[in-house]
């Protein structure tokens, strides 16, 4: 057993874990943060994507011990403290970018990472930026639309405050949803 301390969606946790425990199972089975699902065992599907220390990672391919001392943001921590959705969450809803919704947490986390690096992507760049995430329902077209729409909205939002580009990269301070 190894002792780890991790901040997840703004809450600090300390736990004894087996070294082999995958980060995604730590989130789901230990912390009850089931918003992040597992879709494959080969790092292909990206459903389990979360943000670790400011970068998107596939939480099925990170050991919980590797996240020791780190800060994790999951889909459940994206909305603001007062429950306002992240622009990507809104855009996915408005553009019908999800059907069954299983890939959606990973898609949104990947898109968030993409927009952090490239706030004004072309449709092709969105498609390439999401190449680590699989969706079987939507055919991706509305996902691309949603990411472009969210990008446009964020740019509009940030226009009055040039230089505040990295602001949305900060993990929010409170989780929005209780674990199921």
């Amino acid at each position, binding site marked *: 057993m190894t002792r780890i301390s991790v901040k997840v969606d703004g809450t600090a946790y300390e736990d004894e874990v087996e070294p082999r425990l995958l980060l995604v199972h730590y989130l789901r089975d230990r912390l009850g943060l089931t918003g992040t699902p597992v879709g494959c065992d080969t790092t292909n599907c990206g459903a389990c994507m979360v943000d670790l220390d400011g970068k998107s990672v596939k939480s099925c391919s990170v050991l919980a011990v590797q996240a020791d001392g780190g800060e994790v943001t999951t889909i*459940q921590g994206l909305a603001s403290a007062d429950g306002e959705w992240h622009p990507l969450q809104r855009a996915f809803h408005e553009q019908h970018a999800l059907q*069954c919704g299983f890939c959606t947490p990973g898609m949104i986390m990947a898109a968030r990472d993409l927009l952090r690096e490239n706030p004004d992507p072309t449709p092709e760049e969105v498609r390439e930026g999401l190449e680590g995430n699989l969706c079987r329902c939507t055919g991706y077209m509305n996902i*691309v639309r949603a990411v472009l729409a969210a990008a446009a909205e964020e740019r509009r939002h940030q226009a009055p405050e040039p230089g505040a580009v990295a602001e949305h990269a900060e993990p929010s301070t409170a989780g929005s*949803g209780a674990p199921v």
Partner: protein
Amino acid sequence: MTDQLTGREPEVGRARVRKEDARLVTGRTNWTDNITVPGLLHIAILRSPMAHARIERIDVTPALERPGVVAAYTGRDLAEGLGSLPCAWPVTEDIVLPEHPPVAVDEVRHTGDPVAVVVARDRYAAADALEAIDVDYEPLPPVLNMEAALAEGSPLVHADKGTNRCYTWPLATGEDYATVRERADVVLRRRFVQQRLIPNAMEPRAVVAVPPDTSDQYTLYSATQIPHIVRVMMAVVTGIPEHRLRVVAPDVGGGFGSKLQVYGEEAIGLAVARKLGRPVKWTESRSEGYLATHHGRDQIQDLELAATRDGRLLGLKVDLLADMGAYLMIVTPGVPLLGAFMFPGIYKMDAYDFTCTGVFTTKTPTDAYRGAGRPEATFAIERMMDELAAELGMDSVEVRRRNWIGHDEFPYTTIGGLTYDSGNYESATDKALALFGYDDLRSEQRKREERGDPVRLGIGVSTYTEMCGLAPSRILRDLRYGAGGWEAASIRMLPTGKVEVLTGTSPHGQGHVTSWSQIAADVLGVPFEDVEVLHGDTRTVPQGMDTYGSRSLVVGGVAVHRAARKVVDKARKVAAHLLEASEDDLDFADGVFSVKGSPDAHKTIQEVAFATFTSHDLPDGLEPTINAEHVEDPEAFSYPHGTHLCAVEVDTETGRVRIRSYVCVDDVGKVVNPMIVEGQVHGGLAQGIAQALFEEAVYDEEGNLVSGTMADYLVPCAADLPDFLTDRTETPATTNPLGVKGVGEAGTIASTPAVVNAVVDALRPLGVTDVRMPCTPERIWRALRDARSARPEEGSS
């Protein structure tokens, strides 16, 4: 619709954003694997590493020594309380129906066949314990090739049955095919192969089985499309009385047919929960699912098309071999037959001769996968139409025009015996051609050919229809299917005027909550927001036939509509009483009953609901409820249609295909929610294109699944697929009151032949007449090389 009188914008037809999304985009989900209950144990299943073997010896006791392990069972241990897994579609009288134990007892018949079960305190301990189980296998010869399997002396998948032939199902309609063939100018013969596919719903399957606790019911949570059917079948398989079994489909992450199944793991979960008196969970890993969750397609199609010189079809002969895999699951044998009626497509002809032979192999069983039988049929006829056009030197759209059913000929009874109620192939095709820029692309194609461009352009056409909305129960009887095709809906008018719709459909991404709300809101005249739709729990919705076969809207949605009309009829009686008027004197519009000629005298449906709740003042003999239910047995199948056009660029050096543009114009009748419909089309296209270009379940000579992980089986990602240009025409169905047609499978059915036709069209000037699916770069490269060596005099390009 009544609303039109008042100016209230009808809900049906509006692009409502989905009610389902709020939980899904914030992670507040309820996937089966999320479910936890006190005392929950975890199941792991040991699976056969061999395609075919006798279990000589199996010892699970070492697993019991492992930390955290509560129990371990062999197939024999579990056999006592578990029957064979069911096949509900014995398609012929003499079909071979093998036993299918949830856990193999003496013999394994495909890689992944379960051989033992361990139960432990967590999923890690359970996975570890599998390593401790000892099994000695005596290898038996695998059976992998359908034609070889049917040959004399082939090893047998089920030795006790004496044959690998599962059934042969013939259909001959119209004139005698052989006679018609004699008067043909052209007879084309082709063999097409529908490769085996893995459905790949994004959510892996999972099961949580909870033994009776405070109630006397077992509860089975399952990532299933069919909770109601699972309940019936699990009662049969496990012996748990049906009234003691509750089945819940919580949030379900896609299905595409793969969760239209009654799976062994559901039975295993219940059996272990019963033995231990503890709740248990099983969740498949993706690569486990590749072996354990049913596959799709896998047919060899031998086709013969007879036509006149001017391109008129005379007859079609179809000989199918359909791979059943090792066992018959819920509708395995019936899947190819859902295509039997669709091979003639939208075309008129004089003779049709169909035979399908189901064959056992030592592979994972096949069953429904998005489209189920109809993609195979549509592929065959649409590829053949392109072949005919090429043979006759005719434009591929023109050859279709000469044969399709004219818009003024509906209703039309096809050579396959189906009566298409409505359609307008001309209109959809004209619209698609214009959007596509067909003539310009043809001209570019010629130019590239003339200059010997190494990147060739190809144009593929697919003018499809399909039969969906499963299904009129009497037809299902004629097809020997083991259940009806109805769907149930009930509507509860709550005292405060809010509405609960209970639907027997079981959505897993299709947006029924939103669409059914729109349907109910229109009929009842209540706000969209005031409607809640409940589904997927046999305790809440006691009656249902679930979701598959593009049936939910045309059967289940229609049931909601009719149930809502019954509510209005009941409410009218109450309103008439409250308003002291006769029922005939009441108008109902926008949720308000008003007395004709006295518009001030009115009651809202919400007021009627409350008055019914109190029941203080109802006339004698009037039952104090306006709740209603309706079970809809459709009068006919639903026949969406459309025209799909695909342009591809093929790099003749590497064989790489790039989709340059994709246009489709679909006619799904009246549309409830255009945004949802467009989404269904997009997703369908992606899966159809995936079959054409990317995906294949490949077995090696020993029967191992080589494409055994998501790293090897190429599910396309966003970067692999193009934008789609979608549009619609709207020819209402005449067989249901909403005028709607199914849409869930249309995109998948139509797109595969459009893409392959485009690939072949690009390469035809170079001598290529077919490329097997998936049209991988290497297959295309080989086809080009073979064509070059067959026609050396034309040189290389």
